[in-house]
């Protein structure tokens, strides 16, 4: 974890409402798939808090973030131009487990991305491919435009088997990505990785559990700090023997959790 000022290399619109921000760090960092950063335009007065962004792609001193322009924080990010500066705390959080809990190589996996949750799994997909894990990507979005904005083309470039769903049927199958998962899930899938809206991940978790498959989910929570001090980003977990609490911090205990440890009835976003 380093706290630094990075300079913006580019901040391109992929399609209206979705942008790809590339920054140049002043030193090399090592990061793993699923990690994130806390980012804010330097000198910005409002909004105060940084926004958590998954490391979409990265290589040494260059890091890319894919984001959906929604509220005040992402709107401020969307105004960044080349050579502007961002305050950045990076890398944060844990990463996608790439072995079974018994420590063995995973042979077959499914990755379920919903909306901008895709940003957290692109490098995961690449790594799964490179390490020879037989991987199916299930890629859900509201419509074709959102799918493109969520990096569809970058996923396609990986050349992995891919099922695309859209809510309105404008691209791929019409319907929920979770329905596609139910259809596509074969017995030999050992691990399901998922990132997306809470209700989607909840359903992915249920489907995986019903099929006795390990599932990991990267959660979203409102983040004050991103490095474990505000204790604002908690998720309710099934109470375990160890530890003192029934809440875990998404930023430092996650953002990736084994799905069965999560209390899916308590939405971490408060929704």
């Amino acid at each position, binding site marked *: *974890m*380093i*706290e630094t000022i990075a300079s913006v290399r580019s901040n391109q619109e992929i399609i209206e409402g979705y942008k790809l921000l590339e920054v140049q760090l002043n030193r090399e960092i090592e990061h793993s798939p699923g990690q994130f950063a806390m980012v*804010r335009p330097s000198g910005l007065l*409002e*909004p*105060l*808090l*940084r926004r958590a962004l998954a490391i979409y792609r990265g290589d040494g001193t260059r890091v890319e973030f894919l984001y959906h322009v929604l509220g005040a924080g992402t709107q401020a990010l969307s105004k960044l131009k080349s050579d502007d500066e961002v*305050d950045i*705390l990076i890398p944060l959080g844990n990463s996608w487990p790439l072995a079974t809990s018994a420590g063995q190589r995973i042979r077959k996996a499914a990755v379920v991305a919903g909306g901008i949750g895709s940003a957290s799994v692109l490098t995961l997909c690449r790594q799964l491919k490179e390490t020879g894990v037989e991987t199916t990507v299930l890629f859900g979005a509201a419509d074709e435009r959102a799918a493109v904005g969520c990096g569809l083309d970058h996923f396609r470039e990986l050349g992995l088997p891919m099922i695309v769903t859209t809510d309105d049927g404008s691209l791929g199958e019409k319907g929920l990505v979770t329905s596609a998962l139910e259809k596509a899930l074969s017995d030999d899938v050992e691990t399901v990785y998922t990132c997306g809206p809470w209700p989607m991940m909840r359903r992915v978790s249920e489907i995986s559990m019903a099929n006795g498959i390990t599932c990991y989910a990267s959660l979203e*929570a*409102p983040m*004050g*700090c991103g*490095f*474990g*001090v*505000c*204790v*604002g*980003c*908690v*998720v*309710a977990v099934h109470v375990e023997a160890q530890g*003192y*609490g*029934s*809440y875990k911090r998404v930023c430092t205990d996650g953002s990736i959790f084994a799905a069965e440890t999560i209390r899916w009835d*308590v*939405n*971490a*976003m*408060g*929704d």
Partner: protein
Amino acid sequence: MDSHKTKHDPRLAIEIAGIRFNNPVLGASGTFGYGLEFSELLDLNRLGGFATKGLSAKPLAGNPPRRIVETHGGMLNAIGLQNVGARAFVEEKLPLIRQYDTRVIANVFGYSDDDYLEAIQILNDGEGIDGYELNISCPNVKEGGIVIGNSPVAAARLTEKAKRISRRPLIVKLSPNVTDIVELASAITGAGADALSLINTLVGMSVDVIRRSPRLNYVTGGLSGPAIRPIAVRMVYEVASKVTVPLFGVGGIGSASDALEFILAGASAVQIGTANYYDPLVTLKVSEGLSEYLDKTASPSISSLVGSVSRPF
């Protein structure tokens, strides 16, 4: 961790209630964890000190999410005082914290006087704590939920009891949600507090107009950040002229200039809260900025500036 290498600006050193701080900039309770969370980011030896997350006699799970909401110029929090408990703090955290040359203020809270006293008893056993800071902004369940810190009588009574058993200097942290902050401060110093911190958060609320429900699970939460700084500065200014104990100024500090507002208004030191979240190195930046201010204004020391704002009436 090699504290011998750390160079301190001697003009920033300040003694408060017998505690000597290398500089007057502390991390505020609840925003600085147990200090250790920052060790990867900054040299804790360069820090004036920090107040720990609120510690209770027993560990606490805290509130269900959603716990925080950003607001204009600040944020609301309703963490519910999730903490490891005083015992685990003494046994697991203190040995690690002791490796650093910085001052450690254990922030203490409870839902009844006995809760507070029990926590202090446990902390009395720990080595490496420099003082206690009582967070009296919690509702007292035994007294029907009244907030101890909003009642001068209840606050003074707790202060007196705590002072009696405390092995260490006792700081009391005031709630700003009161009609008369001077009355509250006077009652607490009259009861023996060695110093005061002000302010804690203001009670606020945010509504999700789409879902038509409060954004925080706890409904209301504490407002912090730059939004509240004018209120905090005013309270420090008012209290400084009426009590003789030193004050820690807290509330919306994000720069040396912000810190100086409090110091000039009468605070001997400052604590930085919310700004740590969006600027994790802010504490060190502020102490550097204080040195620069002394240079620029040819002032001998921070202590010479405390309370030096002009008071027209």
